[in-house]
């Protein structure tokens, strides 16, 4: 029966060509959107590696002060903010904190293994503010103030790339133009770009921001991360702002809660998906309607054929199944071409996305296309099946 259907479609391949092309393109479009959706979904289920709730971010922009002066002001600002009873802990961090567009990355070289890694410059209080858990080794402490080597903490993804079967804690990375970097710990995961981003290699780099002990060394950082105690409301913000503008006179200071930042950053991530989905939905609907119309028309043209089949004893169910079957076979042709193209993505690793995401997207697309084809064929086929032999043969 199925072989017979394939022959039927193959014999009319020229007139079916347009329909197969349409199904093929629908498949590709669907595959693209579903890949993106499954990619986000897959990421969403992974842990973030930090807690954004009750974290406020104070972004600072200074004028022409010398770096040392800036560090002094930042140090005093940090002490002042921390002295508030509403504040649990304060940390300093570079501009690429979670839920910002900013990124810093660099090559990471060890034992002939190489990968690009994000790097986050933070001070020793960052773990407490962001609730980052250390899986192996330890978090930064004042021990790391020793000059010469820079203490870093890598994430698991970086460890998998560079230290697949050895313990990275205690290893020193030596590179020509950079100071030595010593790994003091490993964190499970830290996804700066938020819920929808993938888990990429990255590491924290320690910066001693204690001006009292470390006056001239160190660098300047853009953000003060403030963890407030439970129950603190937005009204506290103005108080913070006043304290800040007294210490950092003339600086441009902005306070945002990380919740706010998360909402707007996720919006930016999700908008492309929403737009793609709407456009894809429209294209598929368009194709479905077209398919429905054309099938309806074609089936109506074959009334005499149906009459003949019914007259020689085919049940109406058999006629119905034949037409549905034909459309599904038609869809199969389109899908096969589509799968051949879609499989190139996991095979060539174009975007470095996990194969599972692509497989799920292919399966999802196949399912949707078959459902759509069957749905479009159901009504015309039913009409064809309900034709009585007498009326059908009368047509001619």
């Amino acid at each position: 029966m199925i072989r017979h259907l394939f022959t039927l479609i193959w014999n009319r391949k020229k007139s079916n060509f347009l329909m197969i092309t349409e199904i093929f393109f629908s498949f590709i479009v669907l595959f693209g959107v579903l890949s993106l959706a499954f990619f986000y979904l897959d990421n969403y289920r992974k842990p973030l590696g930090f807690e954004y709730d009750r974290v406020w971010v104070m972004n600072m922009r200074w004028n022409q002060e010398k770096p040392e002066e800036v560090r002094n002001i930042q140090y005093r600002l940090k002490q002042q903010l921390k002295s508030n009873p509403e504040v649990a802990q304060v940390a300093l961090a570079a501009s690429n904190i979670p839920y910002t567009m900013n990124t810093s990355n660099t090559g990471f070289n060890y034992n002939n293994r190489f990968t690009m890694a994000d790097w986050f410059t933070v001070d020793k209080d960052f773990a407490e503010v962001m609730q980052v858990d250390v899986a192996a080794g330890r978090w930064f402490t004042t021990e790391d103030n020793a000059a010469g080597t820079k203490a870093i903490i890598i994430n698991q993804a970086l460890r998998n790339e560079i230290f697949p079967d050895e313990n990275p804690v205690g290893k020193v990375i030596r590179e020509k133009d950079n100071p030595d970097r010593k790994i003091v710990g490993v964190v499970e995961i830290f996804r700066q770009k938020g819920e929808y981003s993938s888990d990429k290699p990255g590491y924290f780099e320690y910066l001693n921001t204690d001006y009292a002990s470390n006056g001239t060394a160190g660098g300047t950082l853009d953000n003060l991360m403030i963890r407030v105690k439970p129950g603190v409301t937005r009204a506290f913000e103005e108080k913070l702002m006043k304290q800040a503008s007294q210490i950092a006179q003339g600086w441009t200071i902005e306070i945002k809660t990380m919740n706010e930042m998360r909402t707007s950053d996720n919006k930016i991530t999700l908008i492309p998906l929403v737009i793609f989905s709407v456009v894809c939905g429209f294209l598929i609907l368009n194709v479905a309607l077209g398919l429905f119309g054309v099938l309806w028309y074609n089936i109506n043209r074959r009334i005499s054929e149906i009459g003949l089949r019914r007259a020689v004893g085919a049940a109406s169910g058999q006629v119905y199944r034949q037409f549905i079957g034909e459309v599904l076979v038609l869809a199969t042709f389109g899908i096969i071409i589509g799968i051949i193209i879609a499989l190139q993505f996991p095979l060539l690793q174009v975007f470095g996305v996990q194969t599972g995401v692509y497989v799920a997207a292919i399966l999802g697309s196949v399912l949707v296309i078959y459902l759509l084809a069957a749905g479009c064929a159901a009504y015309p086929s039913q009409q064809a099946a309900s034709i009585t032999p007498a009326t059908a043969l009368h047509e001619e």
Partner: protein
Amino acid sequence: MLQNYLKIAWKVLLRRKFFTFISLFGISFTLMILMVATAMIDHVTGPATPEKRLDRMLFVNFIKMTGKSGNMNTFPSYYYMNHYVKRLKTPEKISVTTTFRGVNSYVNNKRLSLDLKFTDANFWEVLDFNFLEGQPFNQQDQKNANRVAVITDHARDQYFGPNVSAVGKYMVADGIRYRVTGVVEDVSYSRFNSYANIWVPLSTAPYNKDDTGLTGSYMAIILADSKADIPKIKEEYQSIVKQVKLPNPKEFDKFYSHTESILEGTIVRQLLGDGENSGMGKFIAIISVVVFLFMLMPTINLVNINVSRIMERSSEIGVRKAFGASSNTLIGQFLVENIFLTLIGGLLGFLLSALVLEIIADSGLIPYAQLGLNIRVFGIGLGLSLIFGFISGVYPAYKMSKLQAVQALKGGQV
């Protein structure tokens, strides 16, 4: 003749309403999406208040340095503007501004976040703002570094209360008191050369006079005397760029900067440019491929429907052929019918896109955006409709015209 074709087309449309619906649905939505996309691009790069005279404007937004330390692409400094950009002789006027930055005001203990931009007095002459009240600050304010400000009506409504006159009153932003001299209509966030909620004199900007670095956060708007001067200014600017002295040739030894339109300089060059080349050709190629791929599916769909529909009319075709109509006449007729159909679809698409743009504008996705359709978008939409109608009509018409008269009369297969 044409009138007859249109009459027939109309009758055919009414005959099978479901097919007509499918065709119109496909056409109108396809064109709607394309027109919304066009309107968005136009919103960012086309002339709009206050950048009305875009055909005479050029922008200096970025400088790029390459060398051993990699690439650096950033805004230029005040020093660069003063010593290099201001050397241009050909332009009518040059306005130097900073990028906008967030400032905070407090109204009744509630924070009001505003975006502030430092501008010179030329800014108000180069751009055409709609002043609701008061006037811009002038060269004197700029010279004396007066703490004066022009604000948008949004900022006024939030700070002083809705529709309260603000001119002459004082407003505090980031702890600095400004006297309001004028109120203008909101400017869309997407026009980043002019956007802000509060504009204050450039002379009050905190910058270090001894700083001779090239990087900073400044930008320039250049107004040419006439359109014809644009290439001259570009040339002159490139000769100035050649004279730029790099502060640290060991780090960066090549310097690029261009004075360009918004689309070319601010968008395309940032995405696809490579120092010398702006990547405009690549950009056009990519856009064309995307539009082509996007239109491909609806077109195939329409062709598919048209082929079916045309067969319904095989007896009509047979009669016309038997009475001596040539293939070309029939192809012509069918193309006219199809273009008529797509134009109706285009019109619907135009209405739909107006609706969608309204929704996008209301959603606040682009702050202070006033999205709308204008004659440019309409023209592009019309062009797209015609192309769409032509492409989707040619193949079915060709197939139909190949039909033998005898077979057609019998209601034959294609």
